[in-house]
């Protein structure tokens, strides 16, 4: 990768995030409070609206489907949070599972990430269609992936760990070249 390409987009495997899958009905009492408490230091509820992700204190809760959420946290906190959540949701019909090893995480940094994603899948990644706080599950190449904006000019993305090698090659290919810069237009 040339220096100019690297300035537009850098690809990094990781960080290895702890992930906890939670499935239950969205109207379970205390669900938002339990997730907010799990993130720590959050006042009140942390239940993301559909298609969104709520981040705080190095952790995040993402909306996966109408009855599924994914809690992202540093790996070492996974076991503690899992225990805490199952304690708080005890008595309610729910499913909690540590799925940290099920998915591989990638970080894309630099202004070129929108263009790289646009090359790989059908998701609308224009600034108007995809902004901070949104969580999009979609298709990249031939596999399912999910991504969200984790900082200025930084995107975090995950896919099944069984296809991590494919995803890495795919992203490396998409990061190559300078592209037409369609998302660089002023005001875009």
């Amino acid at each position, binding site marked *: 990768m040339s220096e100019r390409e690297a300035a537009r987009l850098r690809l990094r495997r990781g960080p290895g995030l702890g992930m906890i899958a939670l499935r239950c009905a969205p109207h379970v009492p205390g669900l938002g409070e339990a997730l907010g408490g799990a993130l720590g230091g959050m006042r009140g509820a942390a239940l993301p609206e559909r*298609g969104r992700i709520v981040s705080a204190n190095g952790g995040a809760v993402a909306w*996966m*489907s*109408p009855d599924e959420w994914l809690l992202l946290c540093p790996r070492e906190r996974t076991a503690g949070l899992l225990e805490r959540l199952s304690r708080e949701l005890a008595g309610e019909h729910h499913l909690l599972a540590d799925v940290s090893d099920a998915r591989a995480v990638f970080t894309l940094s630099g202004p070129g990430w929108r263009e790289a994603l646009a090359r790989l899948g059908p998701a609308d990644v224009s600034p108007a269609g995809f902004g901070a706080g949104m969580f999009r*599950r979609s*298709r990249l190449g031939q596999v399912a992936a999910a991504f969200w904006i984790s900082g200025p000019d930084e995107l975090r993305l995950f896919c099944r760990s069984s296809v991590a090698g494919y995803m890495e090659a795919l992203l490396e290919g998409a990061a190559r070249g300078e592209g037409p810069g369609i998302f660089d237009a002023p005001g875009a």
Partner: protein
Amino acid sequence: MLILECPFCGIMADETELAPGGEAHVRRVGPEGSDEAFEAYLFMRRNPCGVHFELWRHAHGCGRWFIAARNTLTLEVYGTYPAQTDRPPAAIVRAIRRRVPGWEWQP
């Protein structure tokens, strides 16, 4: 290329994000049905040239099944709705009738 709105995510999902599930609103024939009726339930599909209801699964997204009402002739999409229903909702029927006057839902 079809673009359908997933009623669960609210996302305008490209066809390649979805997995097709065939004709929707097919009613199962139970143990008391005749062999002919059971055969029809298993194998006979409408394949109309016009208004059609199809099952789709948002396979690369939320994973939910939904039904799309669309026109196989004009490729017009009348709307999508969750699959947990045995007939099209009134709003979808109205949307179809606006474009195809006199259209009737046939179970």
